[in-house]
């Protein structure tokens, strides 16, 4: 396991990665973290500061200056702002005299150059020389290299007695099978499931559990990044987030401090989730949305089904990321304009990518599966937040046009079949196949609702014609959460919520809107969802995407 951790540490970048995991480790070691890395503020060489006692030694202030990977001659001293020597000098010249909190001024100071890898031989002499020259009775140096960090992480997070049986083996399998993402994800899900269902006796243990989940997710992410396949971490980050929320909501009744700490711990997992999502999109999707058929072709399959499914999945992920960015702008960032602007410009880039993705990958004009209503709803939501109603109208009109054509010509029309092997034969030449493969639909009533929300009466009429012409047998319906949803939505223990059915297309567009959105008033289970109450509502959307549940219409009111 130590090898696994060392590999993971060596692959971490400085910003948002190594410096994100270190505070958790220090907290777990019993130190109090005084400061964490922040962007845009002067640090005077210190990335993380903590105070406390390690290994039964007297209490001291620990000042960490973090560098990613191995310490090379260049990292040590290349006259740049980021060189370690410069950072250490800043600590000695500026941080210790000027910024050390007054209550800790009397304590001994340990300066810790920290890096994920090792110190290369070429700089060993210079680093030792520097440490010797600048050590005195008050200030000492201690190297925190990959080996030491790995040992600490293993001892404090992943020790056999701290984990349920099989956890190590599940972690190793998840890492070994990264090139078969669904299998890797299956093992990782089991691991998360084991970790999250453990009975916790104290708040400390609960915090510890969050840190364990975050660490495991980080290890998986860093390994996958090195392997060049982020599929397993993407899926795993969703289940980690949902399981963490399940844990998070259990602290609702405890003390304020505990709640704050747990919220921070959940925030760390959310941050890892965001990092994985954005990495996935930045690496795989965004550079290629402009290319005609680029991502369709990248599926590398001669099955239309693979292309269709994968593209809708990608669209859903991209839209969900947009929604998170919108949430970050609305809910998290309140004052810092530069950060807010950063999120807004990222969101605007993502919205353009949705536009390009749809335009250049025509498979997105008609899903093969009715349950891709999830992705369509997420995209609708993202585009609506961005005010891109024109694109929605164009996209959905084309979708209904193609559906009309596919039903009329027995082409590849949306079906409720989910089994992959069965879908390969779709549409099968079997008697009454249309009736059997389209007994119900959530996709078309949702599009009908969208048409009224964007005030496109023609689109509404087209859905009505489709229903009357080809889908008279099909029950139009939509799902709503109920009181049991809070218990089940994050872990999908059992079936929950209810369907509004049948939804008549004979009524006017306004009557349909009243019926579908009006039902939200009766579906009080939504307001009772802990993620909604805590204003972490995108967590619900992650659950919808992950467990294939229609997006609650409450989001569209």
């Amino acid at each position, binding site marked *: 396991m130590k090898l696994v951790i060392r590999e993971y540490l060596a692959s971490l970048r400085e910003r948002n990665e190594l410096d994100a995991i270190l505070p958790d480790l220090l907290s777990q070691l019993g130190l109090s973290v005084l400061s964490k890395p922040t962007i845009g503020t002067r640090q005077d060489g210190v990335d993380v500061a903590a105070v406390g006692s390690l290994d039964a030694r007297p209490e001291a202030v620990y000042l960490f200056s973090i560098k990613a990977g191995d310490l090379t001659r260049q990292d040590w001293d290349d006259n740049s702002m980021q060189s370690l020597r410069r950072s250490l000098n800043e600590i000695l010249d500026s941080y210790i005299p000027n910024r050390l909190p007054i209550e800790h001024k009397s304590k001994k100071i340990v300066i810790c150059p920290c890096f994920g890898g090792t110190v290369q031989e070429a700089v060993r002499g210079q680093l030792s020389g520097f440490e010797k020259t600048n050590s005195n009775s008050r200030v000492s140096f201690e190297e925190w290299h990959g080996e030491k960090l790995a040992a600490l992480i293993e001892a404090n997070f992943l020790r056999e007695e701290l984990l349920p049986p099989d956890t190590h083996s599940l972690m190793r399998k998840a890492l070994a099978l990264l*090139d*078969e*993402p*669904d*299998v890797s994800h299956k093992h990782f899900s089991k691991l998360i499931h084991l970790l999250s269902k453990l009975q916790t006796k104290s708040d400390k243990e609960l915090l510890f559990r969050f840190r364990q989940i975050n660490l495991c997710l980080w290890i998986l992410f860093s390994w996958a990044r090195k392997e*060049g*396949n*982020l*599929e397993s971490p*993407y899926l795993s980050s969703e289940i980690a987030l949902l399981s963490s929320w399940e844990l998070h909501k259990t602290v609702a009744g405890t003390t304020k401090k505990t709640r704050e700490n747990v919220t921070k711990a959940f925030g760390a997992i959310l941050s890892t989730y965001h990092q994985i999502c954005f990495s*996935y999109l930045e690496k*795989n999707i965004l550079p*290629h949305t402009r*290319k*005609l*058929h*680029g*991502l*369709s*072709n*990248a*599926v*590398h*399959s*001669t*099955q*239309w*089904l*693979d*292309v269709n*499914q*994968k593209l809708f999945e*990608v669209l859903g992920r991209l839209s969900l990321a947009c929604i998170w960015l919108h949430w970050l702008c609305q809910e998290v960032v309140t004052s810092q304009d530069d950060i807010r602007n950063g999120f807004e410009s990222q969101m605007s880039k993502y919205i353009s990518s949705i536009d390009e993705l749809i335009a250049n*990958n*025509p*498979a997105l*004009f*008609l899903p093969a599966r009715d349950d891709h209503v999830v992705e369509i709803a997420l995209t609708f939501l993202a585009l609506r937040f961005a005010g891109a109603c024109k694109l929605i109208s164009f996209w959905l009109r084309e979708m209904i046009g*193609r559906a009309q*054509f*596919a039903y009329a*010509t027995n*082409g*590849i029309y949306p079906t409720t079949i989910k089994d*992959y*092997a069965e879908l*390969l*034969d779709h549409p099968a030449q079997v008697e009454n196949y249309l009736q059997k493969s389209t007994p119900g639909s959530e996709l078309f009533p949702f599009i009908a609702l969208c048409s009224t929300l964007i005030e496109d009466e023609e689109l509404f009429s087209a859905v009505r014609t489709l229903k009357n012409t080809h889908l008279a047998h099909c029950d139009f319906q939509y799902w709503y959460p109920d009181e049991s949803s809070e218990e089940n939505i994050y872990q999908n223990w059992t079936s929950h919520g209810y369907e509004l059915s049948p939804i008549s297309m004979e009524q006017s567009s306004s009557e349909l809107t009243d019926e579908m959105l009006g039902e939200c008033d009766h579906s009080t289970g939504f307001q009772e969802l802990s993620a909604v109450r805590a204003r972490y509502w995108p967590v619900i959307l992650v659950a919808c995407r992950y467990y294939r549940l229609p997006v609650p219409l409450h989001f569209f009111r």
Partner: protein
Amino acid sequence: MDSLDKKIIRSQTEGRLAEFVSQEFLNRHADSDEFLRKLARLSNEGHIDLLGAFAKIENSIAFPNFFPAKILVEKVLPLLNSPIVAILRCLQRLRREAGQDLSASSVFPAFEEYCLKDPQRPSQAFDTIIASPADLSLFLQSTLRCGSRFAFEVFYKRAVGLCQDENIELRSQALSALGHLEYPEDPSILGATMDVLEEALLREPGEQELACIIDSIFHICRHENSLTARAETALEDSIRRDVDVSVHIFSRLFARYADEFSTQQIQFFLHHLRQVRPQSLVTLQQVDIGLGKLLRRGKLIPVITFLESVTNLTDGAISLNVFKMCTTSILDERLGVLNRVTTRWLTPGNYHLAKSLSEALLSSKTQELELTVVIEEVPKLDANSRIRLAESAVGFLFLSPVLAASFVLSLAKRTRSKQIQSQLASLLFDPLMISFPGSVAKFLKSRLKGSSASESLVAKDALCQQSDYESSLRSIGNLPEMHPNQLQIEIANRHFNTALSAAYEEAESRSPLLSAIKKSVILHGAHTVFQITDHEGNRHRSVTPLHLHSTEMEFPRYQFIDPVGIDHMLRRYRQNLVVT
């Protein structure tokens, strides 16, 4: 008497004469004539009852050599001196047992050859048939024809007399015989015969008689051109009485004589054959044979006009796909009609013909052909119709991409319009080159030199678009996150292999070659060795090297990146030809 004679006689005693001589006949390819003479001698000398033996055979699994036996009888017949009754009974049996087989009627020429050997035989046969019309009436026409050679007036009168007989079989045979007698060079007799046939037509004949009347009117007219107008009137009258029967007989005559027909006859027949019904498969087959003959004579226009007319009249229920021989002739490069019909049928109003032509092109081995527009076939080739023609070509010939591309490219000839050139290049690129990057690009590269400036320009533009497209795709590299998962890959492979094996098994079951030969599976090695025993019992070692066979398929890329979209696009292009 040699040993074979003895064997033949012994086989009769053992009650297996027909089996034995049929097998011997099969075994003696080289000296079959001598064998037949031996059989005739033994029969004529009374040693064996050859006809008696063959008058009992059945076309069944118990007698597998039925058809060789029938050939044997037909060949030996002229050499026999057997009584006419025995001859007729034996032939009647063979005719009946042959059922619907095409060779069933070959007993009649054999019978005629027998009759012509002796002037008495037609009279004897006539009497025998009249005495027993229920079984033997089928031989009346042959009898009357042979008799007319020896005694025209006698047999002509007999034929005319029987045209009003109470027995419908005799009546029909007599009506039919009137068209096939050995007439003397006297137009008045043919005129009188025409009178008889016209009268018969007025008597409201049944289907069988009507068929015989039509056949005879046609053949009388072949003897005497001056009767053409009367014949045409009578034939048109026959159509009014029963379209289906008339059209069927017309088709038979058309199939048989199309290579001799005058322009007027071609026009007359094709005009009436348009009334053929889609369900009349045999009639359609006959029409097909005739059309093929006309095409080989270079009579393209009447054939095309007929096909267009019959397709429109039946709303596509009858189209090119029904006429296999005609299609083969159209696709025959040597006849040089393919470009003309392709151009013509890719214009509005010819949806069904374009569809069946494209299907024929796809299923034929003409994939390496190239098509060229024939400007003369398009009355008004302005910018708009040029693009619509190109779209129609793409719509119908999409699955034969090189054919489609060559046709589209040829539309660039004789145009300097940048807009048309650009639209043609765009069509070549999307959907053809996007779907079939290999074959279409290869074709276009081959046309960069040696073509007209405009064609080269369009080809270059399309190739440039493809190059940009492909390099954009290549720039993505490998994104494992986008790949389907391992389980899905395995399911899809299994699905594909199952479909492929089913198709392979079906193809095997339909293969005439594989149904006739024994299949042998070789487990190891690069060649096989087997022993052959020759006629003299010597064994020879034969070595057969094993070869690796493979085939390539280019699946259109659009089929998996946008199946509904490409289907919609192609249908839209094909709808260009639907006249609303």
